[in-house]
């Protein structure tokens, strides 16, 4: 009881996930993976493409995100993201599609360093999911 906090993931279309009994969340923050436990200091950060891991009493859930912002305050974790897919829903064909898109983006020559870095991240993460 004492070690749980609330998580809310929203995307522009809807409230994607609300959970009250979360023990730990690992998010792919821009400067590296970050684990968040209860009573973490208030923080705002943004995400790079990666996997959000949500550990709760009922088990572990993984979500693939391409971008987003997180805010943690008073034991409320809000994650705003435009692209989020549950890893269990991510079948081979979908994964392939996303991978192709990311690879095309990464191979463009005229994009900025940061965009290139983000695209490379996407490719790497998508390849690692199995």
């Amino acid at each position, binding site marked *: 009881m004492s070690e749980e906090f609330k998580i*809310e993931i*929203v*995307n*522009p*279309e*809807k*409230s994607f996930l609300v959970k009250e009994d979360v023990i730990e969340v690992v998010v792919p*923050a*821009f*400067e590296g993976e*970050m684990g968040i436990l209860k009573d973490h*200091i*208030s*923080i*705002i*950060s*943004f995400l790079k493409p990666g996997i959000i891991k949500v550990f709760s009493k009922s088990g572990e859930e993984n979500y693939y995100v391409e971008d987003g*912002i997180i*805010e943690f*305050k008073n034991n409320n974790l*809000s994650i*705003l993201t*435009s692209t989020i897919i549950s890893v269990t829903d991510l079948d081979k064909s979908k994964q392939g599609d996303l991978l192709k898109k990311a690879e095309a983006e990464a191979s463009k020559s005229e994009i900025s360093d940061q965009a290139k870095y983000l695209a490379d991240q996407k490719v790497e993460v998508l390849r690692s999911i199995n």
Partner: protein
Amino acid sequence: MASLDDLKKRIASVKSTQKITKAMKMVAAAKLRRAQESAERGRPYSEKMNNIILNLSNGISSKENAPKLLSGTGENKVHLCVVMTSDRGLCGGFNSNIIKKAKSYFSKILNEGKQLKIITVGSKGNDQLKRVYGDKIIENISFKESKNANYFDADKVGRIIIEKFEAGEFDICTIFYNQFKNVITQLPQAQQIIPLNNKEDHNNSDESYEFEPDEDEILSNLLPKNISTQIFKAMLENSASEQGSRMSAMDNATRNAGEMVDKLTIEYNRSRQAAITKELIEIISGAESL
């Protein structure tokens, strides 16, 4: 007076019009429910986004170094107006309400001697504005192909706006859309998105946040996203308003058609009876003269 045949034809044509408007009303009602749901579901995102930005701008160290998207260019010369309308007509005062609001804003700006640039989203707004402000319209975006408002489209519009801002093409950006209140009421809105005006009191949160990376970098990453989010919100509100407006307009049209059919039917019956009476009189007076 119209002949019996003409009246009959008119009644038939009004009845078939009524059928069409009735069908359109039903379709609009079904779409309205979906649009309203997605507008409501989209609200948490834009609210949260606003909150975070508010907290960030409170925490930002120096106002002078704040990103231009937040604080503005410091000038007030070129206004960009994004007028968001529908792609389809037959929705009552929906489009003309936005246009009216936008036009009064335009003339205010032009009277002040400032420069005006217009982006229209949706073909109906473009049709109505190009007669008067044709030379001011710099871009016309239309999402006829996409069925529902989606974030991808909003992001496209947002990117165009940011590109133009970074190229120094305008100082202040305002979007015009209809806010959905209920089926009969839609409020035309003018919302300034660049620079973001934080009218809300600044001292409501004295919470200190940790930022990773620093505030400036987060802000410069977040503000473009916020623009797309605001546009997406406007698009959702707009599509709910459009369906609501169409539904009540079509409801009125159906009712008016019903009244017209009643009136025409009475007229038809009267002239039918008049014809019969006339014939009878002719027969009787013919018989009398024998």
